């Protein structure tokens, strides 16, 4: 190996270390017995996990976040899949140009989205309500579902659906029986994307969550701004574990999906 290549690998190793350390460091911190940050932790303890699980306020916030993430990811999957199907199958220029609007939440700075939603909710009385939070996260989740499902639909051979329809199925039924099973992996990864995005969403929640309906992330943000409490490390470790679990699901799901279309095409 040349010295240049060795230096290159060394540099890349350091960059990867920089990427991984913050993710890993929270785990030992969460098992520390100390009130204040010290590393390495003086002794092993589960007190911060107990503090989290035993706190009514944290538990309530966790409940709100979970309800929010589940319902908004399901709703944005339905709306996003329908929209992606229309975008993929319509030849009208108008429909195509609407794609720009549908992807708008991805490019707009999040604070601007937040004050916009805050303004609308203040008018219609949806501030600090669960439906309000769910709706806002549906809006944020739709672009993820659309991009994921479009990837699946572009690989799908639309003649199969046409065959089903020529054999007498209506459009709706042929979609559910023929198309959906084949694009299922991309739909599922869209849902998981939307779920993680809703679970992590903080800025919009800062503006529109409140009272009984605080989200986990809003509470964490306030706690981090005021004082650093190792309870946050325990929650962070759990949150990271949940995210990683979902990513592994996405990966397995994608792997399972790959061979299918090829086999189908070759099997004609």
């Amino acid at each position, binding site marked *: 190996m040349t010295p240049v290549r060795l230096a290159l690998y060394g540099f890349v190793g350091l960059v990867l270390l920089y990427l991984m350390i913050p993710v890993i460091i929270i785990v030992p911190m969460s098992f520390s017995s100390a009130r204040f940050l010290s590393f390495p932790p003086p002794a092993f303890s589960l007190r911060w996990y107990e503090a989290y699980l035993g706190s009514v306020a944290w538990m309530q916030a966790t409940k709100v976040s979970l309800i929010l993430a589940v319902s908004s990811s399901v709703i944005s999957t339905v709306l996003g899949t329908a*929209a992606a199907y229309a975008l993929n199958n319509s030849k009208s220029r108008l429909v195509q140009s609407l794609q720009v609007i549908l992807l708008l939440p991805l490019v*707009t700075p999040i604070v601007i989205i937040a004050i916009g939603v805050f303004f609308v909710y203040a008018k219609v009385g949806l501030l600090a309500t669960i439906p309000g939070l769910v709706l806002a996260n549906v809006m944020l989740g739709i672009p993820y579902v659309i991009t994921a499902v479009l990837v699946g639909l572009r690989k799908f051979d639309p003649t199969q659906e046409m065959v089903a329809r020529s054999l007498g199925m209506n459009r709706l039924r042929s979609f559910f029986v023929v198309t959906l099973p084949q694009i299922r992996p991309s739909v599922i990864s869209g849902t998981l994307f939307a779920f993680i995005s809703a679970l992590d969403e903080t800025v919009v929640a800062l503006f529109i969550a409140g009272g009984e309906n605080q989200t986990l992330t809003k509470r964490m943000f306030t706690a981090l701004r005021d004082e650093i409490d190792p309870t946050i490390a325990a929650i962070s470790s759990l949150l990271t574990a949940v995210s990683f679990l979902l990513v592994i699901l996405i990966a397995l799901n994608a792997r399972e999906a790959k061979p299918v279309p090829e086999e189908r095409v070759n099997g004609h």
Partner: protein
Amino acid sequence: MFLLLVPALAVIVTLLLVPLLWLAWQSVYHDGFTLENYRRILSEDVYWHSFLQTFRIAFIVTAATILLGYPVAYVAASLPRRWSIVVLAMVVLPFWTSVLVRAYAWLILLQRTGIINSILKSLGLIDTPLILVNNEFGTVIATVHILLPFMVLPLYATMQKIPAELTMAGASLGGTPAHVFLRVFLPLSLPGIIAGSVLVFVLTLGFYITPELLGGGRTFMVSMLVSRNVELYNEWGAASSISVVLLACVFAIFWAASRLIPVERLMGMR
């Protein structure tokens, strides 16, 4: 077909497009047409400085992600598949960790009494703790960490498509490795650099949580300006004009970039 679009469109139009148009209106109308809100951005130091600081941070972060991300993408693209997956997994994993969690981790690492300072102290390299966080430095470190995957992924995608034959041809024609890299590989990877830079730059412009938690009040980015004006002062006029300018910057950059490379490539990832 259009009917299938309606529900998704309705949600985005009522919760995003209408408020955006209202913000634009609000920024120029207050008991009559006025440009007062825009004049203030130019004349008041706080606003002006915030925009300058935000753009400076965006430039620093973009440059840093190119410097750190290019070698990583290069190595990932040149290694055998089994190893490149390991490298990419390490790039993508932090991407899935909550931004809040990572801000917390950086506080633990960079504080006065944090891990980095204790290590440096026990090694005898420093006497007084370095101030690594609650300033622009801490904000940049954490922002680069969050946005590095957005640089590495498009770079990797571009580099992977560069045929190995081209660099081999360059070498066989007598080019030194450095020469071949600079004249063949680097120009071919340029679209990836542009795509990654646009994403990183634009996303940095909208950063909020990281500077709020790690900036220690000394880093005052545009997003914080918007939120303060609404939350503390209830100044919708100021908040809207700042939002309009910020959005105009974001869209202008995307538009300019889409002339260079297809939009699909800019948006297709994540």
